[in-house]
């Protein structure tokens, strides 16, 4: 299957994005902000369709909107007490706007499916270069804030007492998530970013409690799921995103079963 350029492109793009998603997702799960990540991708949908409407590449609309939304969410998060409701309302509103933009730009409709569910087999060299840059920026930014991010996530009160700005960390982190979501949406689509950003990270945290071990496992699981998903799709002709979603779910529920078994032995 590697004789086809679209296949090597798909492996390269999915591989890079999966590693970034697995690493960023690990912190998303640790902070209990998976819903925020989900919402960011939906907001990105409105951005992508809106960009199409004014003749820009959807990816830049996606990046712009998720980044702006991530920053706003980070700045407001301390003030909004019932965050889930506020995020949910914005999420629905964004999908609504996405629909409106599609309505006015009908020739774009063919791309809507690709945006919603991903189309990794259509990735070209330009997109790979863009994703590589996006991924690199994401990882560098995350590495820069990782230490205070972990502190602020695990022990917010103490971190604050030691002079860590919780608001800055939370805002910077959501900006990082926004970039990762934008990249991830190119592979599995805005509706399915959970498969690479949350599934592998959650599975990794069930299996190991060590920080570095968890991060590595999360990235490895995401990479394995993405690549294996493409292989399965190649041989079955099923959509790639479907295959990745199935693998992601299998890994997560498999990981859930492990501690349950251990606990039974202990009793």
């Amino acid at each position, binding site marked *: 299957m590697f004789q086809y350029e679209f296949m090597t492109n798909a492996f390269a793009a999915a591989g890079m994005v999966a590693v970034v998603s697995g690493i960023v997702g690990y912190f998303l799960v*640790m*902070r*209990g902000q998976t819903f925020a990540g989900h919402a960011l991708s939906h907001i990105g949908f409105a951005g992508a369709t809106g960009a199409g409407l004014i003749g820009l590449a959807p990816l830049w609309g996606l990046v712009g909107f998720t980044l702006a939304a991530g920053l706003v969410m980070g700045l407001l998060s301390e003030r909004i007490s019932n965050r889930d409701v506020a995020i949910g309302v914005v999420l629905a509103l964004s999908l609504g706007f996405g629909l409106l933009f599609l309505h006015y730009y009908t020739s774009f409709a063919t791309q809507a499916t690709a945006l919603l569910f991903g189309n990794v087999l259509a990735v070209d060299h330009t997109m790979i270069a863009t994703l590589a840059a996006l991924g690199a920026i994401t990882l560098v930014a995350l*590495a*820069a*804030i*990782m*230490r*205070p991010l*972990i*502190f*602020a996530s*695990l*022990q917010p*009160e*103490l*971190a*604050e*007492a*030691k*002079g*860590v700005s919780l608001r800055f960390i939370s805002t910077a982190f959501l900006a990082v998530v926004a970039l990762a979501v934008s990249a991830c949406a190119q592979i599995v689509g805005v509706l399915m970013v959970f498969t690479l950003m949350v599934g592998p990270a959650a599975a990794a*945290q*069930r299996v190991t*409690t*060590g*920080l570095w071990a*968890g991060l590595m496992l999360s990235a490895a699981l995401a990479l394995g799921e993405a690549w294996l998903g493409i292989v399965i799709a190649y041989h079955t002709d099923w959509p790639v995103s479907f295959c990745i979603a199935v693998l992601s779910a299998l890994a997560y529920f498999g990981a859930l079963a492990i501690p349950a078994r251990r606990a039974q032995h202990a009793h």
Partner: protein
Amino acid sequence: MSVIELDHATLQIGGRAVLKDISLAIEPGEFIGVLGPNGAGKTTLMRSILGLLPPSAGRLTVFGHTPRCGDASIGYLPQLRTVLPDLRVRGLDYIASSMHGERWGLPSLSAANRVKIEATLDAVGARDLANRALSDMSGGERQRLLLAQALIGDPKLLLLDEPLISLDARHQEVVIDVIKKVCRERKITVLFSAHELNQLLGAIDRVLYLGNAQAVLGRVDEVVTAPVLSRLYGTEIEVLRAGGHIFVLSRGRDIERAEHMHDHGHAH
């Protein structure tokens, strides 16, 4: 020199004076029980001592100077939040996150710091918690872990905000005993906030009772009296002493217990 000194200090949150015109001094090595109804300012006072909330009037000094964030000589055990996220992180990494956690870049744990963490876990008898996930720990184990962490860096002052909350009586005693032992050995000054006085009677030197924006510091028999507490609670209070226990009653009801029942994790 006093460890903590308040000189006509007023602590304000959102325009409301939580504590008003307070003057008191806490001496080195003292074990102070901080009591009072919800919202009386127990957490607020600790946050001020940490340098997170400067007094709106008057002066507050810690070790003789204005407190600043990140002072290593103060150990802090924040009140446990009601809703704990499902933290699948082992004890070692949890404590490691707090060591220079304010620095930028990637986290790293030097061999020296690892030894420090193991030593502090040993000191509170919690070595086995290093490799267990926080989500698998009981409330008592979690408090032990937090206490171990608060002791890192050899603090001279320890602020413990409701470390007994959501623990059963047996675990409460264990936690108090560990704190008492370690702090006596290391000559650490302790501020220990709690809902119930009786558990602390054997450990504390003096009690700091907060209420009605006021504060009274003194020996238990001076402070826990009907006239003083009636003033702090703003209602008629009876104090009964029986069998080495003290019961604070309002209209015949045990006020501490009643509060403990329907309060968990209100930060004030």
